[in-house]
């Protein structure tokens, strides 16, 4: 009983005000910290997004395909002259087709 009375005596109005101020400052600090962490995270995520997206954008700005590393269409190693052609050319055959009188096992036509 006497202890409770003495505690009440110690809680002056100044102390109450000080405690409320401290609590408010704590809340403000917590909010500021959260905002800061969220901002850093957002900037990091945006940075990752840009690092992935920008190379693609760079390619569009070169319609000639200069940022593309195209295979030359002769990905097969079928022993023709195309393998030695520049990737930037349609490769002619190593020898043109010749006349043939033999029976043809296949027929090329629109399909």
């Amino acid at each position, binding site marked *: 009983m006497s202890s409770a009375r003495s505690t009440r005596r110690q809680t002056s109005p100044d102390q109450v005000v000080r405690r409320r101020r401290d609590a408010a400052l704590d809340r403000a600090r917590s909010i500021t910290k959260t905002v800061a962490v969220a901002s850093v995270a957002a900037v990091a995520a945006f940075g990752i997004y840009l690092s992935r997206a920008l190379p*693609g954008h760079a390619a569009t700005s070169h319609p000639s395909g200069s940022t593309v*590393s195209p295979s030359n*269409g002769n990905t097969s190693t*079928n022993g*023709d002259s195309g393998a030695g052609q520049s990737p930037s050319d349609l490769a002619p055959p190593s020898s043109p087709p010749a*006349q043939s009188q033999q*029976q043809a096992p296949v027929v090329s036509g*629109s*399909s």
Partner: protein
Amino acid sequence: MADTALVAGYRNLAVYRTTRWSTSVELVVTDPRAVAPATAILRRQLDRVEQVASRFRPDSEIVQLQKASTRFPSWAQPVSDDLYEAVTIAVRAAALTDGAVDPTVGSALCDLGYDRDFSAVAGGVDRPLPAARPVPGWQTVTVDAERRAVGLLPGTVLDLGATAKAWAADRACAAIAGQLDCGVLVSLGGDLAVANAPDGGFSVGIADVCGDQTTSVQVSVASGGLATSGTGRRHWMLGQHPVHHLVNPETGQPVDSYWRTVSVAAGSCVDANTASTAAIIKGVGAVTWLEERSLPARLVRTDGLCLTAAQWPADTHDGAALRSADR
């Protein structure tokens, strides 16, 4: 439905025939014992290309890429090496044909009703002819070599029809020749790749429509590829309008063709098919374009007149082709 047979008139030539992608598949090998393993390799290659590049399969990688591009615009999506290669080849084909062979015609083809396997379209599609408008353009396809990634504008539908079938023929032909050490010809709808050809090359008939055995025009092909493009087969009725699958990228509508059929020989099947498709789109200027690139070609006008370019041999029957110099 598939069958295997020895080719009459040859000592050791065997041919395997089947159908796939609404078209004929033919495999010719110079060793009859190689037919079975070669067929297995061919099937694996076609399965893989379909898994990667078919715009008719909802689970294909290219369809997934298109969906992801709509969800994450501007974000180039990492893709498998195979899809990366397929798209890169398509973009290269567009660049080398000044945009005539454009892989972004997919949505235009869908608008024309060709949004499913051709067997379901051939009977006709009941919808109006769409208004003319340009396709998004191959320049909007971004290819990031470092990340093996591909980016598309939202809503872009890629159609790799002008290159993927030929790419599949090249891949299968190289794989079979490499693994089985025999001469090989792989024909997918008449777009064919050749490796280790026998002396004199493989004899190939040339016709308006693939598989027309009545043709009397024959050439021998010793290496590389040969492809024929035309409007003779993949055409259908859209409402009251006859349409076909070769789209002018500038209008998004079927090209008003000057040529009925164009056959081109090149260093690979991809390059042959790129050139033959481009020739149809380019129209009257195609002969000069092909000759400048030394690509042997046979072009048949819609009135039936036949021209050749860059050392394509004259037809062997009476109605011999005119060389371009004779025009």
